[in-house]
Every structure is written in structure tokens, then in C-alpha cells.
């Protein structure tokens, strides 16, 4: 009997909810973000939510130049050991607290010292931060580090409201308070994250939504189905094979942007038990392997043309790309000759890769291509969690891995190729490369850095501890009612200037 009443109240409620304002935006995400505290979070997808919730000191533009956000300008001292930043005035946090130098000092110190912080390595070059004016801070560095600005564009530079952060401590992620355009409302893990417009945002005139809801939908087909049915307005990354479907649909819009990262094949040179393999011991075989791959064919077959075939840690579109070392065309004769020169007829090798269909498809192509050059490749698909562990502990001969990329070139190479780098899973060690990458990091002059990175690429393509396949593009589908959406190479969804027609 009560059911009927309940049903009719619910119906009324439903009608009301159905007539919601057009200023609601629903975004389908590829994954569920982890903890929503900029100091603690690790996932790529979490940064997409921060793009709406937490402003950082610095931002990037479409050409990956660093531009002002909460900081209005900045300057390194001549010796590169000090970075002075002037801060924007009249900015408020979402709980009404004022944004100023104290807040920045608090946040950076929190990132550097809190036990649960994951930002310590991002800020490893920082000796200390001081308030040098109400709206000015000065970083003192242990050694010159040009990549610091890039860290301050990412989570390490997202300023949190000191009072709220102090009160919540390590639980800040349950109720984050930042200085971005949208404030946190609620989160149900694996279901949704809801943000609402923060009226006191410093740039409120560019914000045209009252509410943003993020829905984690891992399956690409289901994500697309939600877009087609109008249940979501914007899809964070559609599958490249679905791009034509979206383009052909007059009710949908499509956008793409080349990313900053890379897809790589990692060879175990000196990491634990897996290092004892011909590929790890002989660079001629790695060169041959690289030559046996037809990168354009992978782009066509697997990515439907929506990838950038490449051979360096950054995409060919990047200003840091060394044009004197272009993507090599497939050369099976030369590859075979190199295998012979290395003293082999056929080479047996096991490649581990993540067990998702797109990676598996590409690996099967590589398996077939490499076979023609003399490689008998066994594919071993591995769960992502196990793959990471195997790769860092050296339990692999060859492994296929992705890197989402960083706006500063240092973020794509330093940890991977320096002898003590935290992501140097091949355990590659070349004093000359160490020197070049340290010098590139220490200089703030782009021309000097470019020369160092070019020299590094020469070594990379000779030694091939990692063979790069290219960079994926980020593809977006959205309702045609959406105006002003322009994806940037970092794949963060910025809502400034985006609106939805009724």
C-alpha cells in the first residue's frame, strides 16, 4: 500500500530531477580516480578531476608552454638555485579562506613533509620555500632544476586551503578544498564524483556549469553507448576504432589531441634474474628488433590512424623531438643482417604485456613482424598489478609499458635513463647519458637543454634500453550541444570557456 505512495512521490521527484538545468555536465571517465588529495593521489585519471577542482600555480597552453594560473609570473635566479613566484591576488579557496603566500608555503611544506604525501620525489630538488611578500614566495633549491615549474603545474603545485587541510590531515581527500572553479560535493567510489560551481572563483566569468558529475565507466563500448544515448555529455577518451562512429553522428562532436607520453618496449639489461637474455645482452638485437617493427602499420591497424608513430620518449610533434633521428621505416633485411651479425639465427624472447585487448592486439602484430627478422616471440599477458611488480623487480626479459607523459621533457626521461632513476626498470647505465640528462635538467635555457636532449637521443637509439613505438592521441566524443571544448596535450579536461546549449 505504501509502495504506491512511495512510487508517486518518487515520480514527482523524478520529474523535478528530469527538469534539471541545462548547466549540468556529465563526464564519463575511463577509470575511477584514487584518493582526491593532491598530496596523496597517484592516478592519471584523478588529475582530470583536479582540472576542475584544484587550480595549480602554473598551467600549460596548447603548445605546452607554461602559463600563469595561481602564480602570475616567476623567475629563476641566474645560478638557478632560487625560484621567485608572484601570486595572484583576490583569490579565495572554496571554503572562503584567502589564497596568499602563507597558503602556498603551507601546501608545499605539506607536500614535502606529510607522512602520507606522494609528492616528496616531485619536490626533491626543493631545499625550502619562504614567504617573501604577502603574494610572493621563493623556492630555494638544492641544485638547479628546470623541471620544477612542471612539477608546480601538476599536483605538487595545486594549492589546498590550509585550515581545511590542517583540520582533516591525511583524510583531506574525503572533503578536499582547493581554489578551483568547482567545489567538492560528494563521492561514491566506482559510481560518481559530484562537483558544484564555486561562486567565489577568481575566474568565475569563464565558468558556465552549475554542476559537474564524473562517472567512471571503464568499458569503452559502454562509455560510448552512454554518450550516444545522451546519458553523458562528454567522454574522456573514446577507443580509436570508435572515432568514425562518433564523427558520423550529427548529434555528437569529436576532438582529438596528441598526447605527451609514449608507448615503449623495455629490455631488461641488468635488472635481476631476467637480465640474462640475449636481447638484454646484445644491443644489435635490440636495434634489429626496432627495425623489424612497422610502426605505421600498427598505427593503421590498431589505432585506426589515431596514433603518432615515434621512436623517441616524446612525440614527433614535440619541440623536443630530435629531427635528425626520424622514425625509422621498417627494414627487414637490415634487421636480419643485424641478428646474423650478433651471431644468432633465431632468437627466442618472452615479452610481458598488460592483458587488455588493445595492447594485446598490438603485441600480436609485433610478434608477427619480429618473426620475419628472426625473433621467436612468446607473448605473456599479465595482469597490470603483476606487470608493474615484475617490471620493477626484474622478473622480465622484455616488457611493454606506457608512460602518460609530462609537459617538461625531463619528466619523460630523467627517471627512466639515469643510473639511479626510479623508473629505470631496464637498469640502463651510461655515464654519458647521466651527465647529459643532469646538465639538461640544470639549465633554464631551452636551447642548451635541446642540444643536451638531442645528444641523449643519439645514445638512446644506439643502446635502445627502451624501444619506442609512438604516442597515442587522446580522442574525445561529446554531445554536439557542447561549445568551446578544446583538449590540451595533457588530456586534462578544462571547463573554462566550455558551455552547453539548451
Amino acid at each position, binding site marked *: 500500500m505504501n509502495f504506491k505512495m512511495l512510487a508517486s512521490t518518487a515520480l514527482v521527484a*523524478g520529474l523535478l530531477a528530469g527538469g534539471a538545468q541545462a548547466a549540468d555536465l556529465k563526464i564519463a571517465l575511463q577509470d575511477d580516480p584514487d584518493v582526491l588529495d593532491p598530496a596523496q593521489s597517484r592516478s592519471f585519471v584523478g588529475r582530470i578531476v583536479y582540472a576542475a577542482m584544484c587550480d595549480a600555480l602554473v598551467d600549460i597552453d596548447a603548445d605546452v608552454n607554461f602559463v600563469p594560473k595561481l602564480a602570475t609570473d616567476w623567475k629563476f635566479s641566474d645560478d638557478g638555485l632560487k625560484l621567485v613566484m608572484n601570486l595572484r591576488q583576490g583569490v579565495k579557496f572554496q571554503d572562503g579562506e584567502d589564497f596568499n603566500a602563507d597558503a602556498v608555503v603551507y601546501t608545499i611544506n605539506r607536500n614535502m613533509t606529510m607522512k602520507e604525501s*606522494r609528492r616528496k620525489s616531485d619536490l626533491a630538488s626543493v631545499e625550502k620555500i619562504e614567504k617573501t611578500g604577502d603574494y610572493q614566495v621563493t623556492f630555494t633549491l638544492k641544485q638547479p632544476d628546470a623541471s620544477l615549474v612542471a612539477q608546480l603545474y601538476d599536483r605538487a603545485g595545486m594549492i589546498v586551503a590550509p585550515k581545511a587541510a590542517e583540520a582533516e590531515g591525511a583524510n583531506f581527500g574525503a572533503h578536499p578544498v582547493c581554489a578551483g572553479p568547482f567545489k567538492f560535493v560528494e563521492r561514491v567510489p566506482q*559510481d560518481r564524483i559530484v562537483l558544484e560551481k564555486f561562486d567565489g572563483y577568481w575566474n568565475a566569468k569563464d565558468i558556465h556549469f552549475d554542476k559537474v558529475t564524473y562517472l567512471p565507466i571503464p568499458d569503452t*563500448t559502454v562509455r560510448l553507448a552512454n554518450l*550516444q544515448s545522451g546519458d553523458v555529455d562528454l567522454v574522456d577518451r573514446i577507443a580509436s576504432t570508435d572515432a568514425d562512429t562518433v564523427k558520423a553522428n550529427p548529434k555528437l562532436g569529436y576532438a582529438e589531441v596528441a598526447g605527451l607520453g609514449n608507448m615503449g618496449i623495455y629490455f631488461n639489461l641488468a635488472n635481476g634474474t631476467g637480465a640474462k637474455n640475449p636481447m638484454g645482452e646484445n644491443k644489435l638485437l635490440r636495434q634489429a628488433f626496432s627495425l623489424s617493427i612497422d610502426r605505421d602499420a600498427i598505427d593503421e591497424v590498431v589505432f585506426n590512424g589515431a596514433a603518432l608513430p615515434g621512436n623517441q620518449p616524446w612525440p614527433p610533434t614535440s619541440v623536443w623531438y630530435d629531427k635528425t633521428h626520424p622514425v625509422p621505416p621498417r627494414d627487414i633485411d637490415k634487421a636480419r643482417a643485424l641478428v646474423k651479425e650478433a651471431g644468432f639465427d633465431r632468437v627466442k624472447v618472452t615479452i610481458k604485456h598488460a592483458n587488455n585487448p588493445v595492447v594485446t592486439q598490438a603485441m600480436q602484430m609485433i610478434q608477427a613482424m619480429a618473426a620475419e627478422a628472426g625473433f621467436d616471440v612468446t607473448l605473456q599477458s599479465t595482469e597490470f*598489478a603483476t606487470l608493474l611488480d615484475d617490471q620493477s623487480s626484474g622478473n622480465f626479459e622484455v616488457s611493454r609499458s606506457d608512460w602518460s607523459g609530462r609537459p617538461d621533457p625531463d619528466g619523460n626521461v630523467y627517471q627512466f635513463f639515469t643510473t639511479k632513476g626510479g623508473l629505470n626498470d631496464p637498469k640502463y647505465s651510461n655515464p654519458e647519458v647521466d651527465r647529459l640528462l643532469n646538465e639538461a635538467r640544470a639549465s633554464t635555457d631551452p636551447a642548451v637543454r635541446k642540444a643536451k636532449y638531442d645528444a641523449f637521443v643519439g645514445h638512446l637509439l644506439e643502446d635502445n634500453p627502451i624501444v619506442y613505438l609512438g604516442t597515442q592521441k587522446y580522442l574525445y566524443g561529446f554531445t554536439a550541444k557542447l561549445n568551446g571544448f578544446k583538449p590540451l596535450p595533457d588530456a586534462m579536461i578544462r571547463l573554462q570557456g566550455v558551455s552547453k546549449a539548451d
Partner: protein
Amino acid sequence: MHIFIAKRLLIAIPTLILVSIFVFTLQKLLPGDPVLALAGEERDPATLDAIRAQLHLNDPIVVQYGRWIWAALQGDLGMSLRTNTPVTQLIAQKLPVTIQLAVMSMIVAVLCGIPGGIYAAVHKRRKGDYIVNILALSALSIPNFWLGIMMILLVSVNLGWLPASGYVSPVENFWLSMKTMLMPALVLGTGLSATLLRHTRSSMSGVLKSDYIRTARAKGLRPREVILGHAFRNAILPIITLMALLFGELLAGAVLTEQIFTIPGFGKLTVDAVFTRDYAVVQGVVMCTAVAFIAMNLVADVLYAFLNPRLRAKL
């Protein structure tokens, strides 16, 4: 009766302790470092060690288990490594979702399975029986996940009738909630219907053969009265028991269906936690489903005893 229930509850205790040990051991055996899995692209060795120590992951497994069970007894199931959410809170959020899915699937199953089973029993070894049986067999043999994918393709993508995924609370928006959950419930309900149908058929045909039904028929009661009034009332007993058992399985077994339709319930929570090595979540949620499963088994036994006059007398 009370003694019967008390005895069963007592037996459940060692079972639950064993379950907790199994789950704990199994997840410790899983390859892949949880801290590394969570660190993703950011794995600075010093930070990783700090997290490990913070989570006591370097302690001997027995100590870890002891710590877990001690906290669990006080109602603390730990925190999700991934989202920093208390596991109890996650369970409280997800349980209603899975219960709604289970209830709706059960309704689908009852609506198809019981009338179908009665029909088949009444028409035993005739054309109708064979057709119903073939349908049931087919329903039993369709892989759930494939049916789910095909339905999304047809109903959501091509026809645009129902949402392809997600969850809406019935409190928030009742009709949308029903609409969203309908397709998953149909998918899960398909196999269930078949199981219910087969049991209803066999239970009913047993009863229909019995003497008192013959007597009732001989007295000249109309077939409808005989079947629904007399036979079904007697045949329903084992079916209600079965439904309690199936409900227990549903709470634990909606794994792939939740995965396909992106329903934020128990099954998806567990699978995602296994894949991301979110130990506390795996442990807490599997324990919770085991409790539910054992509880529904108990309910089934009690129902059986309670509804069966002969057994009731003995208790």
C-alpha cells in the same frame, strides 16, 4: 526451534573463521605488490617503503592476520588503499545496490520460472512441457556476460531504450532507478528463472502424482483449483527454500553482470579490488558475502523446517 538455530549459528563460527583465513592467505599469495599497483606511474622507492611500513605490510602474515581479525571484531574492517575510504563505509554504500539487483533479478525469475514450471508439470511429457524445457535449458546455457553485451548492443546502442550502465538510487529517482537496473536484472534473472523453473516442475510433478491430488480431482474440483489451490501450495515449500539459497548466491555472484553494466555493487567492488590488490577491500567484502551466503543458507534451513509440519514437530 531455538536450539536448532543456535546450533547452526555455532557451526557457522568456525566456518567464518576458516573463510577469513582462506581469503587472507589467498590474497597474500597474489603476485604484485599492492603498494606498487597503487603507485602506478609514481613509484619512488623511498615513498613505497614508507607506505609499506605505514600499512604494516612488512610484518609476518600471522601478525597481519591477527591485527585484522582483532580490528574486525570491533567493527573496523580497515581502509581501502586506493580511495582511503573505510571498508565498512564502502560496504554500506554498495550493499543496497547489489540487494536491489538481487531482488529485481529474483522478481524476474519468479515471474518466469514459477508459472513456467507449473505449466510444464501440468503438461508433463507433452509438447508444452518440451518447449518450456528447451527454453529453460537455453536460459541456463547462455553465458551471462555475453547476453549482457548483446543486450547493451541491441537495447541501448541500437534501440536506445534503456541506459547502458550505471546506477541510480530508487530514493533519488525511482523510475530511472528501475529503468537502469532492468537490463542487468533480466540478464541475471534469465539463468535464475531456468533454475526455479526446473525445480518447480519437478516439485509440482511429484505432488501432482500424489494420492490426495487424485482424491481432489475425483471429488470433481476444477483443474485450476486442484493445481493452484492444492498442488502448488504443497509444491512451493522446496522452492521457497531454493529461493533463499539462490538469493545468497546472487549477493555474491553478480560479479560479471556488475562488471559489464558498470554497476557499483559488491561484485564490481570485489573484482576491481582483486585487480588493484586493494587487500582490505577484498578481505572485508568477501567476508561480508560469506556471511550473507551462510545467513541465507540458515534462513533456507529454518524456512524448510518451519514450513514443513512434520519437521517442525521434531524441533
